[in-house]
């Protein structure tokens, strides 16, 4: 099975390719691709029953290591940050792998001491199915929908959580009912509560409460959510246009759309575009706001400063930073895009089933 990879490759994540991969490179593995996670220095992949780390491993670049968990446990989910990778395995426990030192250790059972006895009894803390990792804090999600700020449990009475995500300094979770909660630092609008205040505990993102959200993703300082009706919402800090912009705020006739981009632009139009570019780069959206897409969105994934969406018609679109080819186009062609532009994978005719971004990279899973 395979996936396509583009973006920063300076630590030799994919050997034999240049430092900047702007034409997606195909990576093949034995067995289906279960999960992919990228950081600045490592690409981590679970394919079938095996786990592979590529890039800066054991103090050198261009290294590829296959890692096996003890007791024939199978990895089912992983998440990487600069210093570590957390792995959830089929037996329900959690491992911490350090690529720098190439060491793997099992995390001890998470504590339940902060819960009252009744709650504590109901916690199946040994059954972790999902992990999310940043250099500032890590989250784990249990089978029954409990969240841990590793190692302590988060007390969320009555909430069953289905997904978790870490930004550089904020966190988001999605509940079974389709509600989004965020907490952490809000100084760059990350939390979506309409202000720039920090939150110590998960707080409901009210602007999205009327809709059923089915997918969330978090970048360094921005967030994206997809509703069950296929609408895309973004909020946070748009350093490089990673929030995308809604059509309603543009003023010319869809000229910025890639479908129309072949049309020659007059100088005046170019200058309007530049001005708009200037305006929307670096914008902070303190509340989730809708982004127009040409078809319903089925999946979204955020890298550090870019966003990629997969639409129901099978097309892939991305916005934000592209200095390292993370939008699968050469940086000299487009260093950043404030609107969603279509991503093409050369020589590929099949269907992409999922997108997974991280750091300055994008992965398109076949």
């Amino acid at each position, binding site marked *: 099975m395979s996936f396509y990879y583009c973006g*920063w490759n*300076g*630590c030799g994540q994919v050997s034999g390719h240049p*430092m*900047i991969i702007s034409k997606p490179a195909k990576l093949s593995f034995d067995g289906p691709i279960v999960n992919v996670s990228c950081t*600045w*220095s490592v690409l981590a992949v679970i394919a079938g029953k095996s786990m592979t780390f590529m*890039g*800066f491993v054991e*103090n*050198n*670049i261009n290294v590829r290591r296959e890692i096996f968990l003890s007791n024939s446990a199978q990895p089912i989910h992983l998440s990487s940050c*600069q*210093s570590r990778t957390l792995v959830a395995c089929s037996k329900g426990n959690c491992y911490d792998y350090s690529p*720098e030192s190439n060491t793997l250790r099992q995390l001890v059972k998470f504590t339940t001491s902060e819960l009252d006895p009744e709650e504590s009894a109901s916690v199946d803390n040994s059954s972790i199915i999902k992990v999310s990792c940043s250099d*500032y804090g890590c989250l784990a999600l249990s089978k029954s929908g409990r969240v841990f700020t590793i190692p302590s449990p988060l007390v969320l009475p009555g909430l069953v959580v289905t997904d978790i995500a870490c930004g*550089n*300094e904020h966190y988001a979770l999605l509940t079974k009912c389709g509600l989004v909660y965020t907490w952490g*630092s809000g*100084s*760059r*609008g990350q939390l979506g509560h309409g202000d*720039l205040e920090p939150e110590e505990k998960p707080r409901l993102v009210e602007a999205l409460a009327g809709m059923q959200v089915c997918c969330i993703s978090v970048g*360094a*300082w921005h967030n994206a959510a997809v509703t069950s009706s296929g609408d895309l919402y973004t909020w946070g*800090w748009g*350093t*490089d246009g990673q929030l995308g912009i809604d059509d309603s705020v543009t003023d010319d006739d869809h000229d910025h759309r890639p479908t129309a981009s072949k049309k020659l632009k007059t100088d005046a139009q170019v200058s309007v575009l530049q001005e708009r570019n*200037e305006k929307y*780069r*670096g*914008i*902070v959206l*303190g509340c989730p706001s809708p982004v127009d897409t040409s078809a319903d969105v089925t999946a979204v994934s955020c890298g*550090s*400063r870019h966003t990629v969406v997969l639409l129901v018609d099978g097309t892939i679109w991305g916005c934000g*930073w592209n*200095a*390292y080819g993370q939008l699968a186009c050469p*940086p*000299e062609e487009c*260093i*950043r895009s404030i609107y969603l532009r279509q991503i093409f994978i050369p020589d590929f005719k099949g269907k992409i089933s999922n997108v997974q971004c991280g750091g300055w990279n994008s992965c398109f899973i076949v």
Partner: protein
Amino acid sequence: MLRLVRASFPQPTTNFFGLEAMADDSVDHDAVAERLEASVLESPKCKRDFHSSQSSQFKTAEGETAPKKPSFGDRTSLVLPKLWKLLPDNVCNTFPQLDIVPKPILKLMRDAVCIIPQLKESTSSSEEKKLRLEAEQALTSIQAVLDHTWEQLNTGHWRDVPIVHRHVFSIASLIKILCLLYSQAGDEETLLRLALKAADMGLLLGAPLPSPNECLDLTIAASLLSTTLAQVVEQSGSSEQDPILLEDRSTQFILKGLSGSPIKELDCPSIERFCTDHFLPKLPVKIKGCMMHWPASKRWNDIGYLQRVAGARTVPIELGSHYAHTDYSQKLMTIADFIEQHVVGGKLGYLAQHQLFEQVPELRADICEPEYCCLSDDSIQVEEPANEGTDINAWFGPAGTVSPLHYDPKHNLLAQVVGTKRILLFPPEISPSLYPHSDRLLSNTARVDPEKPDYDQFPLFKNIAPPIECRLEAGEMLYIPPRFWHHVRALSTSFSVSFWWK
């Protein structure tokens, strides 16, 4: 508000871009993004531009095309050994402070550094060609290190960011300068400009590691680059021009709103007199006749001079009505662009409260710290001026720039070098009548606008005694005591220097 934060701490670069300081306006992010662009545009994209320009021809200043072979300019080869000396041997392994830097970052930095000495010693041209390519790779690596570190610098509040990230930014900036110049991936002038910008970014965002023999000092690197660039530009043909006077560009502003009683004036008072009559009782005074010996008095109203000495330097510019207004934002630009668009162009923009003189020592040489700054609250003894204790800031912009009514915690001598400013002064006792902002960061800023007072909203302001009014002309200094409220408006193109001390 930035000013308070900057004024209150000995390290005024702390909270430089004040992300959270200006958080409720959420507008200063343009500035941050601008920083980003600055770093990004230079990397992969520009490199490509260089390739294309190398293979074709270069435009000269006059717009004609002239063939030019891509080799070291004489000037660059003279300055390179001096720059190289600034980078200590084994820089990534020498400093224990760097032990906590993620290993892949150090690895990429180290690899980039290793390329440079090979370039220095390469002899054969085929080998050199290969090495140039490697230098360009090194440039991409080091840019990625800078971009990655930029993300760390923007995570959490600026003052809480671990200093090590700023150390890395500083060192990586120096490596980038060397990689740029050695790569020869462009014409001499372009490379020098990019290198100088890298130095300024390093100065603005980084922090130097304490290091012997002036190693790692980006101020020196920037001065070397700036001087070299000036020579290259001069060589390329722009002939000596008549001075373009800043004051010619001014438009006079008609004062409205409140006016006050005239300020007391002294002609070059003795330190003792200044101390007893003004410093100790904390009373404002205008001091005349004390700046005649400043080289700046003659030089700074010549745009050409400022362009030559500092035109290519990158500085933060405040955009918008003033810092407490919702339209406020910050942007990084070169002084040349700032002069063209704002000072001459007349678009509102303010080089405000920037430690320009630490960044550009050439301009520091044009000013003299007034002897009055040696007075101290702790003792009335007259000592030698202690440079350490005085924060020197530049304030440069077109007519119409405003600092809203605020106070600073330190003694302040505002020296007017070019143009005219109007200052309204209110004593600390009437603070409640000025309705300071409740926000901690803006608590030294009044909500009342003395130029357009809203008496319905701020009724107490109606009953105060008239303020002291000062029209500060070039060559005059204004003493503003600590916590004395002041509102400042530039009536013409204006360049002032403030001295803050305790």
